[in-house]
């Protein structure tokens, strides 16, 4: 009953936010990367007694992606300081999701440096406790950043956490992908499956930078992280490999399954997901 009341309360708040957009209006903040690319993020300061939340979108998406934005808005509404950047992917002021078919000139390292810049940006504003919330491969990238920048205490909530491996079995075993694997970094463009992209075009090295963050690499990162990692997974999410939740749990992640939820937590399962996220943050 209390759970239902809480859900109604949130629904009401979201509705009010939708009706009165100004009330939840975020500031767009901008940083310039080492490649002189302008990267932007929505920043909504929250209560000082609450940790800052870095909400990161999934692979090739933006901060405006539905589930990501809902999470950010919900958290901001809950008084959390929320910074939801859009990884530039080598594009200044990127506004939209980058198509799979686009030429991908970004790589994992650049993405992690931008995350680092945003973390530093938060810290530079006095937010010492920062919790990362990532959706899909965004959670994996936060995990990779935590590992690469040795942020041992950095707590992380992964929603529908998946690696970069192609989502379908056919893609995972495609000849093109095997061909890419044989190419040395710096070789010419490759066209191979990656994540949800059936064809991902990128220079071989840049492709490989993402490709290495597959399921196993995530499990390995989890095991070595030493920090709390909560993972919210929908039971109807078809993208993760089988027994993914078990493997995550086994690797030390706190898995929060949501019955009937898909990869994007559509429908009423979104509120379940948000309840879980808020619940994790209130701990």
């Amino acid at each position: 009953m209390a759970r239902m009341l809480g859900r109604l309360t949130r629904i009401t708040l979201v509705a009010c936010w939708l009706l009165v957009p100004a009330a939840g209006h975020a500031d767009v903040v901008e940083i310039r990367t080492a490649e002189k690319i302008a990267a932007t993020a929505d920043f909504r300061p929250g209560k000082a007694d609450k940790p800052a939340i870095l909400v990161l979108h999934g692979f090739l998406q933006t901060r405006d992606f539905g589930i990501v934005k809902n999470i950010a808005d919900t958290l901001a509404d809950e008084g959390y300081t929320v910074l939801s950047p859009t990884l530039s992917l080598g594009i200044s002021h990127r506004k939209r999701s980058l198509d799979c078919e686009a030429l991908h000139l970004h790589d994992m390292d650049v993405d992690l440096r931008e995350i680092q810049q945003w973390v530093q940006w938060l810290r530079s504003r006095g937010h010492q406790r920062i919790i990362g919330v990532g959706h899909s491969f965004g959670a994996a990238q936060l995990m990779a950043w935590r590992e690469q920048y040795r942020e041992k205490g950095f707590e992380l909530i992964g929603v529908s956490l998946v690696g970069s491996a192609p989502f379908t079995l056919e893609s995972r075993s495609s000849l093109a992908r095997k061909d890419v694997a044989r190419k040395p970094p710096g070789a010419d463009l490759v066209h191979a499956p990656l994540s949800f992209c059936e064809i991902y075009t990128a220079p071989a090295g840049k492709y490989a930078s993402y490709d290495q963050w597959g399921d196993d690499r995530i499990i390995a990162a989890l095991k070595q992280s030493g920090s709390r990692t909560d993972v919210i997974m929908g039971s109807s999410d078809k993208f993760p490999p089988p027994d993914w939740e078990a493997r995550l749990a086994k690797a030390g992640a706190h898995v929060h399954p949501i019955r009937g939820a898909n990869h994007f937590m559509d429908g009423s399962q979104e509120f379940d997901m948000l309840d879980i996220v808020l619940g994790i943050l209130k701990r």
Partner: protein
Amino acid sequence: MKVSRLSISHWVATFFIVLSLTIALLCGIGLYRLYEIGADLDRSRQESARKELAAAMADLSVYLQQQSSVITNWDETRQQLANPDYYGYWKASRMHQSGLISPVFSDLDLYDRAGFLLPGGDTDNEGRINPSDAGKTLYYPAKGLGRISHVFPIYSDGKRNFLLGYAQVSFDLVQALNRIHSFSYLMPEKLAVRNPPPAPLALQDLGKSLSYEVRASHEIEKLEDAVTRTYTILALAMLIAAVTAYLFVHHLLARPLAKLADAIGSLQADEARMDYVDELESPYMLKELDTVRQSIQNYRQKLSDARLELENRNVTFQQQALQDSLTGLYNRRAFEEDWENLVRALAGHSESMALLLFDCDHFKPINDTYGHQVGDLVLQTIAGAVNDVMRSGDRLYRIGGDEFATLLWGADEHMALLIAERCQESVRKEDFRRLGVQEPVSISIGIAIDEISKDDDLTRLQAHADSAMYQAKRPGNKKIAIYRMGEASSEDVLVASLETNALYQALAEPEMMEIHFQRMQPLTGGGEYLEALTRIRHNDTLLMPDRFLPVVLSRRLEAEFDLAVIRLIHSSIESGTIPSGTGVSINLSAQSLHRPEVIAQLIELTRHAERHPLILEITETSLVPQLAEITHFLGILRTSGFKIALDDFGSGYSPLRYLADLPVDIIKFDMGLIHQLKNNDRTSMVVSDFARLMRDAGYSLIAEGVEDEAMLQKVSSLGFAHVQGFHIDMPHVLQPVEAKVVKLFN
């Protein structure tokens, strides 16, 4: 006002032509109005097309702004400007596959902030753009309308704080306009630049320089087609109706009326055209016209009958007009018409023609003596006799009172003479005594032969025949004479003309006449007489009586001539030229004796009878007409003092009868008789005995033609009272000094 008269067929045809033209005119007006509406619509469509083009260009400008914004906001564009390492690949494969680039654009090129083309991109554009062209849409004349360029800047953010570079899209103007605008009036594919400028032209200026064509309005075309088709069908229908109506009216009305008009015209023209007779036999479909047809048919029949009768009468009249009622011969008109026809038939060649003139000798005295009825019978007899011996086909004409003529076509002189002699012989064989005429009746024939051509007239040939007739009538001739050109006869024409002129001139001017006197010598003691013999002096030529007397006779001038002579003798007597006591013997034509003025003049002359005894010689060669009347007048003259002498006794007609009927005192023996006395034969004896017989009967005798002494002795022995002749005296003009007194004849 002059009204041209046309046949009903023409009027009907004119009516339907005017009707057809009127319909055609109305159709034309309708089509013209339709074309005017079409023209208005065309102008309206032109204006609409112009506005459409302007709107399309404005839409294009907006569209370019929109698409520029799309490209500017496309992350991948900024990605390429930031990292152009794979620009070539991106442009070749990704850019067009992305679906973000409008298909309007045939190309998209990216340039860095300095305006240099990003490396690796395949393009037809230049390697560098002028950054100042940013925001402009330019038309390059060299590239044409197929490659318009639109350059715009690309910033890293919406606030345009950081310029990343430039983009240039190229597009085909026509395709672009077709894609972004729906054209109802304009034909974009027909767009063209009027007077292409040397320098690039901005899009807003390009619109003003575009020429275009307006899309044809299919509705108007369909409407025009429908109206034209309708008018064509209407015109054809009216044409067929007009032709049908024309044929109907023509068959029912015009043709019958035309036939009736022609039939009436033929009646008016007095033509007997049998085809109209046949056409009028067929009944007409219109009752009224058929009634007219029947009336004309009946009228035509009556007219035809009347015309036939008239023609018969005309033939009769014509025959009568050309026929002499007395003799039944052709008359003078027929003579002249036949001449004209013959000459006309000659065409271009000539033909020998003989004209024979016949003249009855002494017809007037016969007529006067025996009366007109007998004279007519004489003429009829002569006509019959001559006509009987004419050649087959030759015509005999009566051209005057006792003159006849015939034209002998192709006859030569021999043939003409043969026919003339045949005619003369035929007349001679006639017994005129059955008509009561005792004197022999003969004819003189003058013949003229010449080559006749179509330009010749009758006058010349007739004049020649007259001349020949003059010759024929000369005493002593055989009464047939032929006029011959170049011979004597031809000169006779002149002579005859000269004598005629001289005679008429002398009658008008008596001084031309000279009286020559020849002495009549007395043998038995009587007085001397001078016979007055007339001469005419004409142009130093002295004309003798044998030359002008035939003219006097032929012209019936006996009385006028005798009056002139009597006046001259009277003048000679009064002037004293004739010696006192010398008698004067005067020749007088018998025809003058019944002219009162002649008688009166002679009586006037008797005033000098005491000094100049007078003898009146009546020539015996001329038949004495109206014997009783003459006898009466001679009795008066005899009483008045004249002695009456019968001249030329022995030649001529019925001298014994005259002696019995006329109061004759003196018989003047003809020279021919006197010359017989020279012979010692039976004729001489008869003449001698006759002279003695006459003397014994109480007549005084005068001998003419005494030319020698032997003859003088002979006549003297026979008891002649006077002698006359060259042996005695030559005729001469009396001079006053020569005059001498002679002893009066007792």
